[in-house]
């Protein structure tokens, strides 16, 4: 057989393999659809998204916006989506800050600091997240009641009802406006080329808290103070912001676990920085803090960013464990909706779509940051 005939035979075989794969996939999908159809008719279920407008008639533990048991499925799902985003973002921010601190400590010359960070990482990284979660939840619900609540300077309280924190005495709309202003300030300040990173951060913190105070001062009710501080009243608290116990447990568990992983990512990044650069910084007479900010971290960030992005996505996905302790994240809302309405396929589809959307956006954000960090011309 000559070369051309061989080539023809191979390309025919390739086409056949691919065609078979397509046929197989189509067959699987067709079987799935037809089986689902017969199963659903047997169960007398309607398909489609019409149920989204029906009222749910059940309640759950936590919501950022107003809710009632007359809410439609679509609003309840939106609340779950917002809860997942909210929890995920808090955990991402907290565990990134803690992770950078512990990763730096793990890289430190100071032996004690180093040992402490190592113990922390080995402890939290080598236990399943869900075990840590149910542990913290158990510890929190065994806390003393509101009468014997732990207090920090009489402004914040921790009891088996949850965490009470001081807050601004304003409506949720104003809080939203505050976040918008802070975000806007961040965009404006971090675009300034003439400032050092530390100066930018400092300027942002100062101007941000200033703006928040100003807004609170303008919009707080005239007859009360601009802060709302929780105070004990019999068996409950008045004023302040109440963080339910499920949310506290989620934040605690995910942050401790996530930060141990991020710390290892940070240490890896710091390790990659050539020691000659640090020595050059020392030779220039820079303090160790200046070396960290101006030499080590900018270099290390390039290595840190991609795995850090993976950790962020992991944290977002980890919020689904909330269902184990009854925190109303998206997964919890979807699984409850499935048991209540029976619209399994539609709800699973929405759940998957939401996570694809969240993770895709996070990945794009990380890519963008990565591109900004990349050395020009490399």
């Amino acid at each position: 057989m000559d070369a051309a005939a061989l080539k023809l035979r191979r390309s025919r075989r390739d086409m056949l393999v691919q065609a078979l794969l397509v046929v197989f996939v189509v067959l699987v999908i067709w079987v799935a659809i037809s089986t689902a159809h017969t199963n659903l008719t047997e169960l007398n279920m309607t398909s489609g998204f019409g149920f989204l407008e029906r009222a749910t008639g059940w309640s759950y533990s936590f919501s950022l916006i107003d809710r009632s048991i007359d809410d439609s499925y679509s609003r309840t799902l939106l609340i779950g989506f917002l809860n997942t985003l909210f929890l995920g973002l808090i955990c991402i921010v907290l565990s990134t800050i803690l992770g950078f601190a512990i990763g730096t400590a793990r890289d430190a010359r100071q032996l004690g600091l180093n040992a402490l960070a190592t113990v922390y990482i080995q402890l939290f990284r080598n236990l399943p997240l869900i075990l840590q979660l149910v542990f913290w939840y158990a510890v929190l619900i065994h806390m003393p009641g509101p009468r014997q609540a732990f207090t920090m300077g009489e402004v914040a309280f921790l009891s088996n009802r949850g965490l009470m924190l001081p807050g601004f005495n304003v409506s949720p709309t104003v809080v939203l406006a505050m976040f918008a202003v802070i975000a806007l300030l961040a965009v404006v300040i971090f675009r300034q080329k003439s400032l050092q990173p530390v100066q930018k951060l400092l300027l942002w913190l100062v101007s941000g808290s200033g703006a928040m105070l100003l807004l609170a001062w303008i919009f707080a009710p005239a007859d009360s103070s601009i802060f709302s501080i929780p105070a004990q009243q019999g068996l409950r608290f008045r004023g302040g912001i109440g963080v339910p116990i499920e949310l506290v447990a989620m934040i605690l568990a995910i942050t401790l676990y996530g930060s141990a992983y991020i710390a290892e990512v940070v240490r890896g990044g710091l390790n990659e920085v050539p020691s000659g650069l640090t020595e050059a910084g020392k030779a220039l007479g820079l303090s160790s803090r200046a070396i960290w900010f101006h030499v080590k971290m900018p270099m290390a960030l390039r290595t840190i960013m991609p795995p850090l992005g993976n950790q962020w996505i992991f944290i977002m996905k980890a919020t689904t464990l909330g269902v184990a302790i009854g925190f109303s994240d998206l997964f919890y809302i979807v699984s409850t909706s499935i048991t209540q309405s029976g619209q399994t396929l539609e709800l699973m589809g929405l759940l998957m779509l939401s996570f694809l959307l969240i993770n895709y956006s996070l990945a794009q954000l990380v890519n963008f940051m990565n591109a900004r960090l990349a050395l020009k011309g490399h």
Partner: protein
Amino acid sequence: MALASELPAQSDRWTTFANTLKKRAFRSPSDSFTSVFIFGLMLYMAWTLIDWAILSAVWRAEDVEHCANAGGACWSVIAARHRLILFGLYPFEEHWRSTLACLAIVATVVLSCLPRFWSTSRLVTLWIVGFGAYVVLMDGRLIGQPIVTTDQWGGLALTLFMFSAVVLLGMPLGLLLALARRSKLPVVRGAASLLIDFIRSLPLLTTLFAAAVVIPLLLPDWLNGDKIWRVIVGFALFFACYQAEVFRGGFQAIPKGQFEAGKALGLTPFQTLSRIVMPQVFRHALPSTINMVVVTFKETAIVIIIGFFDVLASANAAFGTVEWAPYYIEVYAFVGAIYWIFIFSLSQYGEYLKARMAVAKR
């Protein structure tokens, strides 16, 4: 290379240690202050822990009434309930089978860490034998013992079963997906990439939930199987999609010349792959594979959410009675210690392999 005489002798260890301390802990007054503070804190925490866990603890199951007044841990709950935690609802008088089955899995994991087992055929044989021994022992019908069905398997035994089934099933599937993703056929490549990226962007819980709840709606009854097997297949798919990326990294580390050399020797593509490329891919992928195995062991804990009676669920049951309710910390500490020992040893082994390979590369 340093001469033997230049290397620090055994007796110099103390001097080296003292030097390290001097350099890294007591270089300046403020440094010394920090060190004393941190070491003091760590000693204090260690002492509190030892006092709670050992010195002031109550150990015997009969001493329950002492627990309330003891200043330390009440290990009585473990003494009384350890069988429930380890084996779940498995029939009490058959626990020796569960014990042997768990030992078979642990032995399989330990043996696969030994270099002499590092060939595909040996590893496959080892895992099939270990896993088979587990199933035969737990099920019992082949060894002439009373049959125990899967719905009675529980505790640590169930966790180990899920873990080994997922790894055993997921490893070849992962290799297959990695090969498909590298295929030159666009449809095969596209389908594999789509599946891998899709599964990887979803939380594991979603995949497991879909396997447990959605699949029965989509497949005809005769294809459905037990819930436990559906969940294991779902979990194995998750494992395979991550492991495929690990293998892909391994493939990328192989120079193209290796494939061409195989061709030049007259080997078929399959022979080139199995005799030349794959051994190197496995070697490259080894540390990350260990990583994946560790992650899988850790993640099996979430099957509690979809209703399996694994070691975490049986721990919850262990302090679920009025008598034992106050001692939840002891139970979680016990289960945590089991997980921690497993995961820590495996991940330390992964670190050791990584270091060994870094040396080999230099």
